[in-house]
């Protein structure tokens, strides 16, 4: 039997094989490590946010007994009625032994200053309460809240904590009588900002963000897509379009605060639009996201195979029909991806909004595009800057709300993309 002839190439291939596989293994390990590291950091981030923020979702209430005296409380002059007095009277009746002025002040301190508004609202909504004796849960002061959540250390000397020994005693009595409870903090999700941590809520900023992003989306998506389609499909390729292309790429890299200054100068000073409003904020963010959307849209238009364009033109579709019927549907998923990246940027943007006054302290929930408002990241910034201990948890909770907002937005985009995706 004769020996089959040796193939010299296969020897060379075999020699190099080990090295090739080693390189592949190395790359795989590198990739896996990178992903693992990223996951670790992500986990750390979520852990730190959730662990410091979850407490803000609970709130402490104190039960008081109030009598809405028909002589004092009438439907007509509710606003002028003495609700704070009502609370004081209730506290006095619970702790008759407290007599000195200073002690009384300390006692009243346990109840949130917002409690009288709560009572007023309740009576307003339910006039039948007038003339009744009622047991009502009202919000406790933020220091009480902190104490019950373990953020104030009882064992430290009295001078080093914000709750005195006497107040501790009263609270213990209340707790013993079952007049203190912690429940889910609905107010956090329904009210606007406040100087009092126990009253401050995220809803105002959420609405602000919503209105601002609505303006941003409804302007930047159509304008961005139209600009991309024009540049990619209709514009002649010459020096001018090259210059425009370069400048769009430059704009995408401009620091966002510059857009804020531009917005301040153009929209507020020149056009006289109201400051601190979602309208102006949305316009500024539109300027900021437009380049991102245009660049992403152009890339996804470029990736539509030319054979589809030829097919459409070949049977006599006009250019507009070719774009609208064939190119756009294929490019839309990519455009949506670009848009969602731009919107996520816009959602997290703070600096340019500071320049147009959206950093103002705003208590009311905005109900439109021209109501003064703030947005979630600015609210986080404001709370992170506040001295009260209770705002620490609020800050983290607000970050969670911001992230939830982001997830919702992304989920909507994914759903939309699924809807428009065309199977080949």
């Amino acid at each position, binding site marked *: 039997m004769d020996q089959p002839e040796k193939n010299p190439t296969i020897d060379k291939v075999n020699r190099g094989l080990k090295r090739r596989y080693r390189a592949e293994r190395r790359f795989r390990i590198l990739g896996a490590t990178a992903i693992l590291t990223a996951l670790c950091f992500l986990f750390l981030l979520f852990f730190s946010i959730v662990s410091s923020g979850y407490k803000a979702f609970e709130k402490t209430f104190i039960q008081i007994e109030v009598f809405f005296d028909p002589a004092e409380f009438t439907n007509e002059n509710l606003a002028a009625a003495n609700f704070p007095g009502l609370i004081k009277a209730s506290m006095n009746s619970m702790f008759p032994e407290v007599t000195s002025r200073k002690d009384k002040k300390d006692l009243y301190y346990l109840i949130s200053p917002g409690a009288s508004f709560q009572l007023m609202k309740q009576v307003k909504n339910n006039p039948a309460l007038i003339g009744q004796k009622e047991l009502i849960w009202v919000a406790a002061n933020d220091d009480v809240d902190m104490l019950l959540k373990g953020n104030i250390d009882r064992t430290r000397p009295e001078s080093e904590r914000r709750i005195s020994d006497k107040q501790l005693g009263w609270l213990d009595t209340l707790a013993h009588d079952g007049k203190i409870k912690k429940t889910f903090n609905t107010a956090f999700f329904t009210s606007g900002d406040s100087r009092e941590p126990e009253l401050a809520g995220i809803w105002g900023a959420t609405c602000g963000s919503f209105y601002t992003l609505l303006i941003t989306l409804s302007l930047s998506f159509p304008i961005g897509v139209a600009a991309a389609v024009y540049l990619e499909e209709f514009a002649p*390729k010459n020096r001018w379009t090259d210059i425009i292309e370069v400048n769009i790429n430059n704009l995408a890299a401009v620091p966002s605060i510059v857009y804020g200054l531009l917005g301040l100068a153009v929209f507020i000073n020149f056009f006289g639009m109201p400051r601190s409003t979602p309208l102006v904020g949305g316009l500024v963010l539109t300027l900021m996201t437009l380049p991102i959307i245009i660049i992403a849209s152009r890339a996804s238009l470029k990736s539509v*195979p030319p054979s*589809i364009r*030829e*097919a459409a*033109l*070949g*049977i*006599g579709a006009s250019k507009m029909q070719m774009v609208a019927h064939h190119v756009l549907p294929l490019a839309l998923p990519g455009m949506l991806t670009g848009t969602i990246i731009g919107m996520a940027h816009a959602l997290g943007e703070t600096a340019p909004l500071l320049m147009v006054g959206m950093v103002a302290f705003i208590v009311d929930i905005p109900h439109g595009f021209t109501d003064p408002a703030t947005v979630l990241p600015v609210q986080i910034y404001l709370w992170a800057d506040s001295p009260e201990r209770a705002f620490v948890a609020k800050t983290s909770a607000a970050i969670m709300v911001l992230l939830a907002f982001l997830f919702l937005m992304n989920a909507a985009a994914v759903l939309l993309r699924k809807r428009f995706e065309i199977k*080949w």
Partner: protein
Amino acid sequence: MSGKEEILSEVTTKALHKERETVGSPFVENPRMTCREVNVYYGDKKAINNVNIDIARNEVIAMIGPSGCGKSTFLRCLNRMNDTIEGCRVTGDLRLDGMDIHDKNVDVVPLRARVGMVFQKPNPFPKSIFDNVAYGPKIHGLAQNKAELDEIVERSLKKAGLWDEVKDRLTQPGTGLSGGQQQRLCIARAIAVSPEVILMDEPCSALDPIATARIEELIAELRQHYSIVIVTHSMQQAARVSQRTAYFHLGDLIEVGMTDRVFTNPRHQLTEDYITGRFG
């Protein structure tokens, strides 16, 4: 041949190189399309050099020649698809039924409805089979109602020999068909708008012999109503389907004549080299 035709057929047009003059019979009587002194440039590069040819009514004319000689480029002049290529410039006089198609005022939309095109690579839209065929009639407003549209789609698919294979799956995506079926779908799409001329750029290059035979049968049938210009690399195919054959070489139109004559008795040395396999 009558005397007049004789004269017409013996006309040789002036060309830059003496040895690259078009020989044979590029002109016919009562042509569908006429092309005179057509030059095409890609930027500074000349891809088609002074081509003169007529396309007759109800004929299949095959364009052959080595790769890169400009067959596709010339084909694309006939319905102005070259407009879509950046930097491509066409000069000369091209007429469809006497109408100058490269005139500035000519609208390419109706022109492309009259001169349809089938591309080398099947390119169905990523839509349903029905929508693929119905798209042309829809945008041109050829159907008054759904029933008419259904009828056009059915007729086109039948003509393209695809109806029996797809009649139960008209709503499925056209991209899910096999390569040969896709190409026939593209043909159905092109004939759905009832063009006068159909340009086919190597329609069978990706198909097996059975699908090829089907498309050749189809071409023979379509010839009853349309003029067909077909680019092909297969000389057997050219011999089977066409009445006339045009041979291109490096941008020049070398020889045009009746297909059997060109293949049995080429007059130009380059043509002979090509069809005998000495070149390309």
